[in-house]
């Protein structure tokens, strides 16, 4: 490393900078926790902890219900995380240099690379999952230590007595990188399936979309299993922007355009106030019920999720087609987990509009054969939920049968399917179906690797320090 390069990066390696950043992180957590009282956990996650910057309102410091104008800027979690990441890398570059040279350097690098590969393989879910199931957690950790040995040896060859510190710093870097990977690539959705139904999509209940559907002709005798419907989806952000700009929203695939008159972060449907008639141009649900704005869900207690909605006015080449109330709240009015589509007839063709949660279609289907919901005898306390699933792959003559139950998720197609809920029968009969939580997170094992690396680093550093201490004692004893 040249002297000039070291001069450039030295300020970034400052320990004072580290302290300042950790202080900012603590303050951010404090502000975010205060804001969460009224704004909801997911909003706070987006605005405070995964953003680059946030305007912190002064009213979060007041008792709930009191307001005051004003706010101040503060770095968001992403900015602080990035800064810590750069700080760590710079500190490493400045303070930690290879102790090895020549053949030892080459050997150390080789062993470290092999060790990193072994750790990655060991921590991948394909290995650790069955291992945990077969030998238990304690034995898995012991085997894990063996798996970490090559990396440990490689680091020691490269850095000598400072190998432990290097591993600890490496684990922190990996932890931050893991969060970045999770934030940018992870997807958490849910898959509700009725008994006997084959489900081919999952939905993200934190994001809504407006779907305009052109269903096939109902008189068409085509096989339903092969039939498709043409769907045009408008993301939630487009609707929000439309409510602000008031500009018509159109798409080449649709014979009409629409305008978002009002957008609701959280909404419900209800009959119109006494004495107030529906808007004269109402169509569909709006002829009987109107939209009501609701406070943003806080993510805790009863208020767990937002049900976005909007008032839309539809036009065809400027000619009004009516006013529609669309909201994901409608899934609570019809069949559970299914929102209500509203018809729009244009030139004899029926189109349907549907405010729903953002869907992700899968190349395979999950067919729910049976669902069991066991209780502890004599109580209503759940003992076990289990779903007997048949995985339907296109062209697969013998679908694979799997059982998903509490604490025994299924890993399939890059996703992990957890048993998370069920669809109750409102009439009190057997449950109607299951709800699976579907998680795709390429960075899911990185925190495990980081923590294990950090643990090994601490252990190594302790052993090296102990060895030095004992050695000094022996030398002193010898000198006396």
């Amino acid at each position, binding site marked *: 490393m040249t002297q000039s390069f070291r001069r450039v990066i030295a300020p970034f390696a400052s320990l004072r900078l580290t302290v300042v950043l950790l202080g900012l992180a603590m303050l951010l957590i404090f502000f975010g926790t205060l804001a969460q009282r009224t704004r909801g956990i997911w909003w706070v996650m987006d605005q405070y902890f995964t953003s680059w910057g946030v305007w912190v309102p002064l009213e979060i410091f007041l008792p709930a219900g009191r307001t005051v104008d004003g706010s101040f800027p503060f770095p968001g979690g992403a900015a602080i995380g990035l800064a810590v990441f750069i700080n760590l890398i710079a500190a490493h570059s400045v303070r930690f240099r290879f102790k090895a040279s020549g053949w030892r350097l080459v050997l150390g690098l080789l062993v470290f690379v092999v060790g990193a590969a072994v750790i990655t393989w060991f921590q991948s879910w394909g290995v650790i999952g069955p291992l945990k199931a077969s030998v238990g957690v304690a034995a898995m950790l012991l085997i894990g230590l063996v798996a970490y040995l090559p990396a440990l040896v490689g680091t020691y060859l490269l850095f000598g007595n400072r190998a432990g510190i290097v591993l600890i710093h490496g684990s922190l870097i990996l932890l931050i990188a893991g969060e970045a990977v999770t934030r940018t690539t992870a997807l958490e959705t849910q898959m509700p399936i*009725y008994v006997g139904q084959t489900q081919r999509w999952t939905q993200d209940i934190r994001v809504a979309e407006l779907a305009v559907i052109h269903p096939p002709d109902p008189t068409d005798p085509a096989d339903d299993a092969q039939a498709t419907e043409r769907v*045009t989806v408008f993301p939630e952000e487009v609707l929000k922007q439309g*409510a602000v700009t008031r500009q018509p929203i159109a798409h080449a695939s649709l014979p009409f355009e629409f305008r978002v008159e009002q957008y609701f972060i959280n909404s419900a449907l209800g009959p119109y*106030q*006494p004495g107030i008639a*529906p808007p004269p141009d109402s169509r569909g649900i709006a002829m009987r019920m109107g939209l009501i704005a609701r406070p943003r869900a806080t993510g805790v207690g009863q208020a767990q999720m937002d049900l976005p909605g909007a008032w839309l006015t539809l036009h065809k080449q400027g000619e009004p087609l009516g006013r529609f109330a669309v909201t994901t709240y409608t899934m609570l009015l*019809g069949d559970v987990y299914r929102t209500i589509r509203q018809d729009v007839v244009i030139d004899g063709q029926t189109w349907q509009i549907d405010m729903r949660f953002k869907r992700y279609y899968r190349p395979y289907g999950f067919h729910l054969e049976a669902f069991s919901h066991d209780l502890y005898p004599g109580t209503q306390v759940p003992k076990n939920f289990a779903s007997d699933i048949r995985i339907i792959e296109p062209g697969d003559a013998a679908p694979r049968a799997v059982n998903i139950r509490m604490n025994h998720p299924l890993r399939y197609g890059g996703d992990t399917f957890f048993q998370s809920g069920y669809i109750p029968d409102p009439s009190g009969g057997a449950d109607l179906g299951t709800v699976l939580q579907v998680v795709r997170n390429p960075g899911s094992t990185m925190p495990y690797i980081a923590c294990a690396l950090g643990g090994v680093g601490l252990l190594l550093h302790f052993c090296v320090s102990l060895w030095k201490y004992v050695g000094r004692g022996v030398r002193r004893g010898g000198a006396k």
Partner: protein
Amino acid sequence: MVQPALLFSLVLAGLLGCGEQPQIQTYDAPLDPRPELLVQRDGQMARTAQAQAGVQPEQSVTWTLPEGWRQTMHPSGDRLATLMAGEGDGALEVAITRFAGTGGDLLANLNRWAGQIDHPTPVREADLPNMLSPIDGTPIEGIFIDMTGNQRMVTAWFSDGHTSWFIKAQDADAKVVPHLPQIRELVQTFRPQDPHAGHDHADGHDHNHDHPAHAPAPPETLETPEAPEAAAPPQSTESTSSPESQVSTPSPAEDGRP
């Protein structure tokens, strides 16, 4: 400390400028049929009622659309059809639904409907002559119910003892009145067609009825939002308020049944 701050600012500025714009997408999706279980459950309920009554599967029915009317929704679940009377601002939606059994207790239904349109409750037997009239001239026995609260609700209720059908319209009084003669005309054409037809709909397409016939409880994993008691009409189209500002206090629940 000045150099790091400068670099971080530059990196942040770059990252902030790289945000993805939401995209409108069009794709072909597999049909999303109503879960077979729900269809079967409806069918089983009907068949159970029929078996108990010792009768053949329920009758199909036909009707004739009055002039200028059109059908906007085809059979789905308990809803046989959604009809639209008239055009433009004066258009009125009329729903035709079917349920197994006799349809329930008359006074209980009337009181539930009265609550939906803010008609004075309770409705007592003494009030019936003012709101009921028999439907004559149809092969199936029926009554015509006319109630007015903050809206007008007219219902033709047919029952052959094991299946009930409802032809129902609910809207502002001024909107319903012009269509009343045609609603009565439609009711007069309502008659059984094929007494051996099955109950379940075979079209398999999901038309998602907007009639909460089953009104199932929400799933355990979802919040049950308290439905508001009453809605205000949408804001003026000239409003420029931010979507974030559209927040009001939640109100008590409605029962969500038709």
